[in-house]
């Protein structure tokens, strides 16, 4: 075969497709508008670039694909040649070629080194024993996960940022965990002694032991690790070790081809990210700039931007970056920025609350005007604002302690985000300024999600999201848009507030609610919301309050574009007998209904006129069917797979569970519809992880996932609990759903609700599992009431002449509505289009 290159574009080869290598490609595509260059990238790892910053989420339920920086198809769509699992083994600078481990030789015009770094493994004897791991790649995590099954105790060597993250992961894997730190305090680079001590006590209260001033001398064990011996001759019995003692830039290739490297490693670069060879750039954690290796993404992204710019003829420079960080560690917030200790003449303000476990420190210039740095442990809410003051050299208030004094009194002094200059960088990962965010809002970004999507701000470490949210709210308020969750002009309440009002004061009718808490007559927003809340709390058939029901709920069926209805009987778990299938076929045939299998594993019958609904329901009910609530903001379907009953891989009876769950939650009204799925094994044929709550069978029981969504903004559900039994599963699900119903806003799916929930998944777990709010009894009781008082709404309606009054097209005539017309297509009906319709309107 002969490869013919018609037009040979100059080629840029990127060595390494990690976070920064990827970002380079993305930035380069944006800038290389004329598409002058061909981009080629070599990726040593067996998958394209992924979000290493959120690596630990791989343990909490995210898949490798979830973590991808971009879909695999993105590379080909953008004409990037990506060689996965192919390491570059040689660079020939004279001939300007690179050679891959598979023997591929490619010429380059420009080369970008983005080889990142590797964990530093100190030369301790025994570090090569089985059971010793590092924490950097997905493969590392897979190996750890596997080994952890047989391990009971784990030690993490290194009490820095990554070490503590690894310790959390080890604990989550079920091991008794120790952190061993060489320095006299935790996170020596980010914290001072007092802050480090406070962090230690927080971590120890979470049952992780911390050993400071410990120098590991030997890792002992027969083939596999069994104990650690320290320089002071003390010992610690462990059967697994994670080393997190720092990083070493991967400069081996650079060294071999004669590029200048630093004494302690790192490829030397200038402010354009150029190495000692003018055709070669280095960016990210492999690059050494003015003696510094930056082990964070934000500086790496900036480097990628500078290099991509220069290649496209835009001169920008890298001037160093600050190492400010904010993270959530083992249940507590830690942040630091700038100077963490006062130098000669500078001053400090410190709050050290050992009861609440909060430590805050500001370092301030001698004249009291400038913020030079700070530390926050335990409560880092002030971080965003402080960082802005620090970075923009803004004037401090006369009493700077107010910036970190505990919230509580409502006279929160701080800098409002609106006071920041437009040039203030809100998101440092993506280098997005306040100005850019403001114009995006002016151009119509209508939510923080929108802002993220159109500016990329908040998509890196996520640390800037609170500030972005403040900015968004402030801008909205400024332009007169009320972001308060006020329902509509008739009620000053949000849905969750209305729920509480109804629940607490026992209100049962809209008129009473309106009289006591609202004004006017109501509208299509507050009426159905109130109707849904009444149903969620008192659980009476919804047509008892006919005037509150809109469109579908008003007729217990789904209104179609032509004004006819579709009918969806419940088919729990998607399981149906041949006899019942025949009934559906017969009914559909008798009333000439269009028949379709839905995306929810059931059958939909379309084209019924309003006056036909009761008779059709009657036939269905007589045959043992009931309402499927396809029309309601309520449980839709619990999809199932055949599971262990039939499937050769099934480990549990997923079908039975799905049917039972569907029957348990049928009819329950909620802020938005909710869906579920149960899969019989990890192959996940029921797509449970795209559901509001999804269940996947394991050898030991069930894994429960929550907050998934298909639809417009798909989201994989988060792992909520693993290997639980059926009883626990139902208990957790009951509470999860009731808590959602109680607190979510109108038309907010569980996915959105969960993302907005302060404290996120951890908070949800605390509420549901540990009863941290003390409301579990109430939730359990409410759910029991709903389950016990379920009634089929169709059955209720067909037996109540009052409710049936509205089920006719004309009150004064039995004529049919002539404007409804069908045409035949593929042997069934469909609504005639407006053009096909043969009908003249008389007014």
């Amino acid at each position, binding site marked *: 075969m002969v490869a013919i290159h018609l037009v040979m574009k100059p080629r840029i080869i990127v060595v390494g497709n990690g976070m920064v290598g990827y970002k380079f490609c993305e930035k380069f595509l944006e800038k290389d508008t004329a598409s002058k260059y061909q981009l080629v990238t070599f990726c040593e790892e067996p998958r394209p670039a992924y979000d290493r910053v959120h690596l630990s989420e791989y343990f909490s339920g995210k898949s490798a694909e979830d973590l991808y920086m971009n879909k695999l198809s993105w590379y080909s769509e953008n004409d990037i040649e990506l060689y996965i699992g192919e390491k570059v083994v040689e660079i020939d600078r004279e001939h300007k070629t690179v050679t891959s481990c598979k023997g591929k030789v490619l010429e380059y015009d420009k080369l970008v080194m983005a080889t990142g770094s590797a964990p530093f493994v100190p030369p301790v004897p025994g570090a090569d024993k089985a059971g010793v791991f590092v924490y950097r790649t997905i493969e590392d995590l897979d190996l750890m996960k596997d080994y952890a099954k047989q391990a009971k105790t784990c030690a993490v060597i290194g009490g820095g940022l990554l070490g503590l993250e690894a310790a959390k992961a080890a604990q989550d894997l079920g091991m008794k965990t120790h952190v061993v730190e060489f320095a006299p305090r935790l996170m020596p680079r980010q914290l001072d002694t007092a802050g480090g001590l406070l962090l230690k006590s927080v971590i120890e209260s979470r049952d992780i032991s911390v050993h400071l001033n410990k120098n590991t001398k030997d890792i002992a064990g027969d083939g596999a690790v069994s104990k650690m011996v320290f320089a002071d001759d003390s010992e610690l019995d462990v059967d697994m070790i994670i080393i997190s003692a720092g990083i070493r830039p991967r400069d081996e290739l650079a060294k071999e081809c004669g590029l200048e490297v630093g004494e302690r490693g790192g490829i030397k670069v200038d402010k354009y990210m150029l190495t000692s060879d003018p055709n070669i750039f280095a960016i990210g954690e492999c690059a050494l700039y003015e003696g510094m290796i930056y082990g964070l993404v934000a500086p790496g992204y900036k480097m990628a931007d500078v290099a991509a710019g220069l290649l496209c003829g835009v001169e920008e420079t890298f001037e160093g970056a600050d190492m400010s960080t904010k993270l959530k560690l083992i249940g507590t917030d830690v942040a630091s920025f700038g100077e963490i200790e006062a130098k000669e003449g500078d001053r400090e303000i410190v709050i050290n609350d050992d009861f609440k476990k909060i430590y805050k420190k500001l370092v301030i210039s001698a004249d009291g005007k400038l913020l030079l740095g700070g530390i926050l442990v335990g409560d880092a809410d002030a971080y965003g604002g402080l960082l802005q003051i620090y970075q923009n050299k803004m004037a401090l208030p006369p009493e700077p302690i107010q910036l970190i004094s505990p919230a509580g009194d409502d006279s929160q002094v701080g800098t409002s985000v609106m006071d920041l200059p437009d040039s203030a960088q809100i998101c440092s990962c993506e280098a997005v300024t306040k100005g850019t965010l403001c114009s995006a809002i002016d151009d119509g970004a209508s939510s923080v999600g929108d802002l993220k999507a159109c500016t990329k701000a908040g998509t890196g470490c996520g640390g800037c999201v609170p500030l972005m949210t403040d900015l968004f709210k402030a801008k909205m308020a400024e332009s007169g848009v009320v972001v308060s969750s006020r329902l509509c002009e008739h009620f000053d309440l949000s849905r969750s507030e209305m729920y509480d009002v109804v629940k607490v004061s026992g209100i049962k009718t809209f008129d009473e609610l309106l009289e006591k808490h609202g004004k006017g007559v*109501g509208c299509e927003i507050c009426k159905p919301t109130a109707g849904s809340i009444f149903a969620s709390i008192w659980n009476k058939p919804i047509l008892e309050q006919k005037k509150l029901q809109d469109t579908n709920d008003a*007729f217990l069926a789904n209104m179609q574009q032509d004004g006819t209805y579709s009918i969806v009987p419940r088919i729990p778990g998607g399981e149906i007998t041949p006899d019942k299938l025949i009934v559906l076929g017969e009914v559909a045939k008798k009333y000439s209904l269009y028949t379709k299998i839905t995306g929810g594993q059931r059958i939909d019958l379309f084209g019924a006129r309003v006056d036909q609904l009761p008779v059709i329901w009657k036939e269905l009910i007589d045959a043992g069917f009931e309402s499927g609530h396809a029309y309601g903001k309520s449980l839709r379907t619990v999809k199932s797979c055949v599971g262990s009953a039939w499937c050769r891989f099934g480990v549990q009876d997923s079908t039975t569970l799905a049917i039972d769950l569907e029957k348990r939650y049928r009819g329950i009204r909620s802020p938005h519809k909710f869906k579920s799925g149960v899969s019989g094994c990890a192959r996940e044929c029921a797509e449970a992880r795209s559901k509001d709550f999804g269940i996947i069978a394991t050898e030991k029981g069930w894994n429960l996932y929550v907050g998934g969504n298909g639809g417009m903004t798909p989201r994989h559900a988060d792992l909520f609990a693993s290997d639980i039994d059926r009883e626990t599963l139902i208990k957790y699900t009951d509470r999860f759903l009731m808590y959602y119903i109680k607190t979510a806003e109108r038309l907010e799916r569980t996915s959105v609700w969960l993302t907005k929930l302060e404290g996120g998944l951890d908070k949800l777990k605390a509420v549901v599992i540990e009863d941290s709010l003390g409301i579990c009894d109430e939730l359990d009781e409410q759910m029991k009431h709903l389950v016990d008082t379920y009634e089929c709404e169709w059955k209720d309606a067909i037996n109540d002449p009052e409710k049936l009054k509205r089920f006719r097209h004309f009150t004064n005539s039995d004529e049919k*509505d002539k404007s409804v017309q069908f045409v035949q297509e593929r042997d069934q009906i469909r609504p005639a289009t*407006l053009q096909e319709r043969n009908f003249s309107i008389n007014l």
Partner: protein
Amino acid sequence: MDTNWTNIGSVDLYPQDLGSCVLVGDVQVAVFHLADEQRWYAVQNYNPQNERMVLSRGIVGDEKGTPIIICPLHKYRYSLKDGKCFTDEQYSLKVFEVREEAGELLVKAS
């Protein structure tokens, strides 16, 4: 053509705060009874925006005090008083007179 009052039956047939549809000659009329004002309204059943006969099945309410009917399909809002569309002013509805007499409802639509 002369307009006449048509008797459309007992008021009991027409539920409060909901819409009903009646046929007057060839015309589909949507009739509403607002309990709040103790008043009847009637407009065309045909929604000019989506060209469907659906307005009687919409929900009623008010926008800043003006009684409105909201289309069940795409939520366009129309004033029951003069038929103006609040959502998109290019649309409007024809309104009809309606009154109660000795327990019977009369509408003037033909």
